[in-house]
Structure formats: C-alpha cells, structure tokens
C-alpha cells in the first residue's frame, strides 16, 4: 500500500549507472505532495473517459486517497493535488471523466473549460487499454484543444487478461504525442508517466498532434474562420477548435466569444499564472 511510485524508479536505478541516473529524469525521485498545491511551477490536467482508472492515476501521483469509484460520474468536481519531480513542483488537476467534449452537460463543460481556459502546461489523457478505440475519441478531441498531451494507456493488465496486445509505440507514433503504458492500481509505469510529462513541459519531447481529418468542405470552412478568431482573441492556442465549435453552433462557445468571455478568461489566465504569462506574451510577439 505504501510503496510509492519512486519504488519503481529505485529498483530500476539500481540496475544502471548512478551517474546516468542523475541526468535521467525517469529515475529522479517522485515526491508525492498531497493537497499542498501552493507555489507549483506547472499545471498538469488529468482527463479521460469514466472508468479508466483516472482517479487511481491521480492518487498514485499525489499520494492522496481520493475515493475511486468504478462507475461514471464519480468525480463531478475538480480535484487538485500536487507532486514534485527533480525540484519542480507540479499541480495536478483531476477533471471529471467524460466521453467527449462536445455536449453541454456540466461535467463535460468543466473539463472543456479547464482545457480551454486553464491552459494547463500538459494534459494527461488516461485511456482504457481494453477499449482503446472508444477512448481515442476523447484523445483526438483533446488534441484539437491543446498539443501538450501525454496519453496514459492504463489497465494494461486487464487488456492482457482479455487477450489484447496494445502496441504503445505505434499508438504514440500515430497520435504524435507520447503514450505511456501503465497499471495505475499497482502503480506500474507512474515514474515513466511523470518523467514523460516533465519532458513534454520542458520541450525535450516535441509533440505534433494528429489532427482529425475532416472532409474537404469542413476543413475549408475551418480555414476560413480560424484566422478571424485568432485576430479577435490573440494568444488563443486553439482557434481551429473554436472555429469547429462555432460551425457546430455550440451556444456556449458562441456566447463566450460574443460576451468577450473567451478573451477575458484567456486574459485572466495570463494574470493568474505569471509562470505562463511570459510564454503567452512570447506567442503574441510571434504573431
């Protein structure tokens, strides 16, 4: 029960040269910081379908014991925790489990708004290895909103029991973002997951997310709309997605754009997180 994820790192580091270990983030000590989220350097969001063991991943990383339920809708509010790796502190935000980011139910909106306006430094999408296809629908939607994504392929043990082999490397190649196999309940793969998250945040791992291929007329419409949105809300990293939502007649996004909420939330986020503001300013400068 009490063997932290660092236990995995420790046992592995015993096998390799100690000097290499210092340099390699995968083998750095993972410190689980519970609810102490003050002064975090980075924000990491945890998204995923219901029932993928998302809360188990959250608990394994933070050392918290948020109740894990084997049914959808267990986490209806945002839970926050923290962990530290190689001297950096990470705030982990557990989002409600959802199947998509398209509909207007409140749990989907919480997830969507956080990804949109919370602008996390990295988003971990926890997927169920036994039902990858269905889970990828959400992954692809998240990839439309943000490109700093790590896919956590959880429940690898159950997939094996069900006679399914998941080729995580092929998955990672196809999606254009790192994919990490895990068994969160027994904390397997957690060390690799956090070091991958750190590598994505630090820019050591470059992502080039797969964009959903839409029929030509849809792509044309998106291309016609996205630049206008970028002009109106400078610094918005996902104008393409907003365009798609507007084409779909998403009332919530329409309102957000019309009332200036989209701009305001993007602004507020810049002020609230000084660590991020420089990056966003840099983005503005580039435009």
């Amino acid at each position, binding site marked *: *029960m009490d063997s932290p994820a660092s236990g995995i790192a420790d046992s592995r580091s015993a096998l390799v040269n100690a000097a290499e270990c210092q340099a390699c983030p995968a083998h750095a000590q993972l410190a689980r910081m519970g609810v102490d989220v003050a002064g975090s350097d980075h924000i990491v969001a945890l998204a995923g379908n*219901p*029932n993928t063991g998302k809360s188990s991943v959250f608990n394994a990383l933070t050392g918290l*014991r948020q*109740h894990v*339920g*084997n*049914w*959808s*809708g267990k986490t*209806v*509010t945002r839970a926050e925790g923290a962990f530290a790796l190689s001297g950096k502190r990470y705030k982990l935000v557990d989002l*409600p489990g959802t199947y998509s980011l398209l509909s*207007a*139910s*409140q*749990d989907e909106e919480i997830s969507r708004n956080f990804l949109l306006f919370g602008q996390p430094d990295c988003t971990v999408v926890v997927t169920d290895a*036994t039902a*990858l*296809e*269905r889970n*990828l*629908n959400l*992954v*692809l*939607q998240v990839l439309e909103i943000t490109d700093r994504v790590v896919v956590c392929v959880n429940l690898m043990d*159950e997939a094996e*029991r*069900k*006679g*399914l*082999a998941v*080729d995580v490397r*092929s*998955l990672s190649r*196809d*999606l254009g973002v790192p994919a990490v196999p895990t068994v969160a*309940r027994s904390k397997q793969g957690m060390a690799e997951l956090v070091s991958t998250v750190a590598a994505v945040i630090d820019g050591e791992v470059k992502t080039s997310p*797969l964009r*959903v*291929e*839409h029929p030509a*007329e*849809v792509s044309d*419409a998106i291309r*016609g*709309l996205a630049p*206008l*949105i970028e*002009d*109106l809300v400078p610094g918005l990293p996902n104008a393409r997605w907003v365009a*798609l939502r*507007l*084409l*779909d*007649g998403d009332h919530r996004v*329409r309102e957000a*754009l*019309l009332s*200036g909420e989209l701009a305001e939330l993007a602004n507020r986020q810049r002020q609230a997180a000084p660590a991020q503001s420089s990056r966003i300013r840099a983005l503005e400068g580039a435009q």
Partner: protein
Amino acid sequence: MPADAQVILDRSDTLRSELGGSFRDRMVEALYQNAQRVASRSVRATGAGKWDFDQRVDRLVTSRWLGLPLMLLLLGAVFWVTILGANVPSQMLASALFAVEGAAAAWFESLGAPWWLTGFVWHGVFRGLAWVVSVMLPPMAIFFPVFTILEDLGYLPRVAFNLDWLFRRAGAHGKQALTMAMGFGCNAAGVTSTRIIDSPRERLLAILTNNFVPCNGRFPTLIMLAVIFVAASFPPAVASFAAAGAVVGVVLLGVAFTLAVSWALSRTVLSGEASAFTLELPPYRRPSFLRILYTSLIDRTIFVLGRAMLTAAPAGAVIWLLANIEVGGAGLSTHAIRALGPLGEAVGLDGVILLAYVIAIPANEIVVPTMLMCYLGGSMMMDVTTYEQIRAVLVDQHGWTLLTAVNLMLFSLLHNPCATTILTIWKETRSPRWTALGAIMPLAIAFLVCLLTAQASRLLL
C-alpha cells in the same frame, strides 16, 4: 470587440448553412473514423481472454427476472450483516462511555464544581457525544466497508441499468439511479453528483428527490428502530432477518417515493420527455481490500462521525440548557415539548420527536441521541444502554407504540433534508425557489404520510 465577434458569428452562420444540416454527424463520423484507424493499428487480439466471464455475470445480475430480486437480496444482506454485527459493540460503547460520564461527574462534584458546570459539561455536551458515538459508530464501521465493496466491484452501474426503465417511466433520467445510490452515502454528495445529468429538467428532478433515499446519517435511526420494534416481535432465530427486511422495506419505500414524486413533478412543474443516454457497464474489478478499508473507515466513517460529533456537542449543550433553564416552573424543553405535543400526536409521533427533529436540522445523525437525551434527561438512568432497556423506557414511560416506531421510520425517511444538503441544493440550483421546494416538499410529504398512517391505524385498530 463585440462587433468583431458578431462578424465572426455571422460568418460561421453562413458557413454552417453552406455545410448543411448533417455537419454534426459528419464531424463525429470523421472523429470516429480517425479513432478507429489509429486503434486498429495499435491493438491486436492475442487469443482467448476472460471476456466471457464478465458477460456471463452481467447476464445474470441484469437479467429481467433475476436482476431486481438479486439486488434486494444483496441490499438485505448488507443490512443484515450490519444489524448483526453492530448490536453488541453499540452496547459495549454505550456502557463504557456512560460509566465515564458518571465517574467524571462524580469527580467534578468531589472537586466542588457547581452543579450547572457538571451538568452542562458531562450531562450535556459529553452525553450528546456519547450517544452519537455509541449509536452511530458500530453500524457505520460495518455498513460502509461492505457497501464500498459492492461499489468497487462495479455493481452500482448494474443497479442503474436495472432501474433505468422505472426512472424513464417516471419521466426522469436513468442516471438518476446513480445519483440516488450516491445519496445512500450522503444526500449532499448525491445532490452534487447530479451534475452527470445533462438536461437541466431531469437534473432538477434528481436534486429534488435525492432526499428520499436515507443517507447514512439516517440509517442508524432506521436500524435501531428496526431492531427495537420490528425484531422484538419476531422469535430470536429470525429477528435479525426481520430487522434487515424492515430496513430494506423502508429503502424500497424511499425509492417508490423518489419515482412517484419524479413522476408527479415531471407531469406538472417540470414537464418534458426523458432523454436517452448510454450507460457503460464497466468490467468487474477485484476490489483492493486495504484501500476499501481505508476509504470507508477514514474517508467515510470518521468523516461522518466527526461531522455528527461536531453537531452533537452543541446539540447536547442546547438540550441540557433547554431542560435546565426554568421558566414558569418548568424547563424550556418541557414547554417546547408541550407546544409541539398536539401536532406530534396528530401524526402518530410526539412532542419530543418533533423537538429532536428541530434540533437535528444541522445533521440527521443526532436525531436519536437528541430524542434519548430528552426522554432520559431528567431521570438518573445512566444504565439504559441495551436495546431492551431503551425499548422498555420508550414503551412503558413514554407511551410508544408500534405506530410511533413505524411513523418515526417514515418521518426519518421522508422529512426535510439536513442543512448541509439544503445548502448544496442552493449551490447547485442557485435558485431560492427550487431550494425552498427541495426543503419544504419533503417535510410536507412526511407530515402528510404520517398523518395518514396515524389516522388509518386509529380507525382500524
């Protein structure tokens, strides 16, 4: 800025009409195709698995004929284990804590402390705490872990599956069965969990009716009454089964009220059609027992007990003050009990019970402790700790009948939600109107139902 935004919206409207009505379908289709392509390249079936096992179990527990009876059997078993296991530790705790009260009070007196200080601290605050701990701790420490095992196995979504058609018929959302299940733990949590329901109309139905499933603050009341009054009228061999059956009966009645009130609301103030949804039946998972013990004991039992103790201490103080501040030759509580008496009698309860419910508005957990303190307060009956002794006092000295017990169970099931839940309803709806309805409607139903059973039993018996 807004002008620009309007330009963009107009442009998107034009583009949307050019794209035609099937845009959403084409977009989702593209998404699914992409997902399918990626998945097909990375997932490979290696051969036989345990797939069959899950499906076979599911076919059994969600079958048309066996699903519901199996569910009742499981629920009954949970209560039975709780009743069987909680009785003796409850009595031991009560004896021990009241011995402490007696010894400590005597010690205060020997130190020359004034009577009111001894009374306030030990016969007020401490006694309130002692009742809460002894009445609530043992059932919770058994009920929560057992219930959590069912939850962890993945049984709850099957319950929702089994009950879906009933909720749909009541004009409510099938997921309301899940929010209802959350309500067994805590109604405030149940109200929050309604966020999983998309449609505002169906969400309101789920919020307004969540109170009709007894939360764990009310289970100890129900269990105690079932043991004292129902089990006592059966031979010892089957007494515990009868008590468990009675609690299951009350829960079923709660579900019936949930459905009936949902039905009535969805045909009046909240009219509309039930929306369709997909419910995933997750794979069965081996529960990890250490975590269950931790979650159910620390997160739930200690949390709920802590909350109960936080309200029990001031409640104990209030009761002691009410009993000992005399106006016109009698304690304030005597006046209050006398004033509430006629209303209580009319609905088959009494003044003490109604006073207990007024004092227990912050938390349902303290209803029984408050009641017992009012009943036993004046006397020096420190040694009333076993269920038989409690029964004797209630029946012989305070005129309780089977009707009182049955109506108290009904009132406990149906009455207004606790202050925390009312606050949560307000937070979730942000509407004073719905909050008021959520608080007053159950109370009115509770009085009405108790009035009907009281009149009926007086006519028939």
